[in-house]
């Protein structure tokens, strides 16, 4: 018995180490480039504490192509967030009423399995066929297709806590479909919808290959950054990487704070 306990605690610690190593493996590259973006010299290295500088960020904002790319990325991510949020919400509403849920779910999650380069290629030819010129809109459509499966899963998780009896009660009390949605469903699933939109925003912001294939001359931030990386430009590339990471990290932190706040508030009102 004792031996078994010793063995199981050994296994537990082994697993802890594995998890820690995996987290380090996944996050070190991103953190590393964020740190070296504050090094003022030309060498990519970890800056000394008293040398931390925003020099390359200042340099970055001197580049004439950056504002355009930033604007495109912001528009692309925002529109994708709206489209993804709305489509995922429709998916969630439809899903409740369906008999053959498995087929519906299979179709909506299918795009996860399409490799980015193939989705990009086939869409670029498909858009050409439909006489849709490469534009911000083709990028947004591609990114919505990319983000929708993730958003659908988020929405379905949030809808799964929605009790059918509440909806029936609302109908019994004479509320129509829209009123039931506005006063019952939406308030209860609002956070899931926000989560779905957040997925849309962040996935679009950081996606590269699909945008690259369907964008024509419209540069998003990721396309601009990839060009700079390939050409081996000056260290402002680290600042650019740092910038795009900071935007994502900021949004993730805001979302986490928001959800923590919600949980706390509901704990207070319920308890």
């Amino acid at each position, binding site marked *: 018995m004792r031996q078994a306990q010793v063995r199981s605690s050994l296994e537990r610690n082994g697993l802890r180490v594995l998890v820690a190593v995996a987290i380090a493996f996944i996050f070190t590259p991103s953190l590393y480039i964020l740190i070296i973006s504050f090094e003022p010299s030309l060498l990519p290295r970890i800056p000394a504490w008293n040398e931390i500088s925003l020099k390359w960020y200042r340099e970055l904002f001197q580049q004439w192509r950056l504002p355009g790319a930033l604007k495109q990325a912001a528009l692309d991510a925002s529109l994708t967030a709206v489209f993804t949020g709305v489509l995922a919400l429709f998916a969630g509403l439809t899903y409740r009423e369906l008999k053959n849920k498995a087929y519906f779910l*299979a179709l909506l999650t299918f795009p996860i399995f399409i490799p980015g380069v193939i989705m990009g290629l086939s869409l670029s030819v498909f858009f050409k066929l439909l006489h849709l010129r490469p534009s911000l809109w083709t990028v947004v459509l591609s990114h919505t297709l990319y983000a929708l499966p993730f958003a659908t899963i988020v929405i379905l998780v949030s809808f799964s806590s929605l009790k059918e009896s509440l909806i029936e009660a609302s109908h019994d009390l004479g509320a129509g479909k829209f009123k039931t949605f506005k006063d019952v469903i939406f308030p209860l699933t609002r956070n899931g919808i926000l989560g779905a939109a957040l997925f849309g925003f962040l996935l679009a912001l950081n996606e590269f290959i699909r945008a690259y294939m369907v964008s024509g001359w419209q540069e998003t931030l990721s396309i601009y950054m990839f060009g700079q990386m390939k050409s081996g430009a000056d260290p402002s590339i680290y600042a650019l990487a740092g910038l795009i990471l900071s935007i994502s990290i900021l949004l993730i932190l805001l979302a986490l704070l928001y959800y923590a706040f919600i949980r706390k508030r509901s704990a207070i009102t319920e308890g």
Partner: protein
Amino acid sequence: MLIPVLFVFMLGVAPLILTAMWSFWPETDYWIRPGFTLFAYQKFFTTGQYITFLKTLKVAAIVTALALVIAYPIAYFIQKIVSLKYRHILLTVFIVPFFLSYIVRVFSLRLILGTYGIINNMLVGLKIVPEPLPWLLFSEFAVIVGLLSSNLPFMIFPIVMSLTRVERSTLEASQDLGASFFNTFTRIILPLTKPGIFAGCIFVFIMSLGSTVEWDLLGGVGELSVSQMLVSLMSALRLPSVFAISTLILVIMVGLLWLGIRYAQIDKLFESLQR
């Protein structure tokens, strides 16, 4: 209300069907015309294209196997060992990489694995190797590291989801009946988590097969991947070849999904959502 279905069908399914159809159309000057020819496929097997294809398949298989071996214990730890609070924290931690730029991650690995990067500096500094290892970067090794770093969460989540099907009481019953952990694992846990394992493997395999950035930024000179080949064929407007190679990848993808549904019930993964 069927807008999402229409949307995915129009943009996600129809272009792929067209791609497969167009791969049989003959080439004209920089475009294609209706007809039937196997020319693009012939070219695939007679020129070097299939070698690149096979090499990418090999790398994707290695990455998938490594990801499974690393992710399974992690998923088990998250779902079955830690408390609910830590489960939420760990799941959040592993969701975050989806939201961070993968181009940045891969580009950073270039600095980390380079001749004067931190890994080589450390190895030389600790006198483990006499001089920097050249094969850490611009090599198949670097590509595998990059793909693993990008795709590990894609393996963890499906397995975590499938582990929710393993009830604690079942595990306790198995233990009470005197089964060793090995027996419990192979007879109960493994069969119940098969959907998650399959779904994770299909994810990671397809993602790795279709990856461009990792190969572009970490791969060696002259080491093309399938997707790099596709991008360069596309810019040369060799459309039939582009469609034929895409179709081959799609056939593999659909085949794997069919196997997954047929033999591993990967559609059961979302069981908890299908009430």
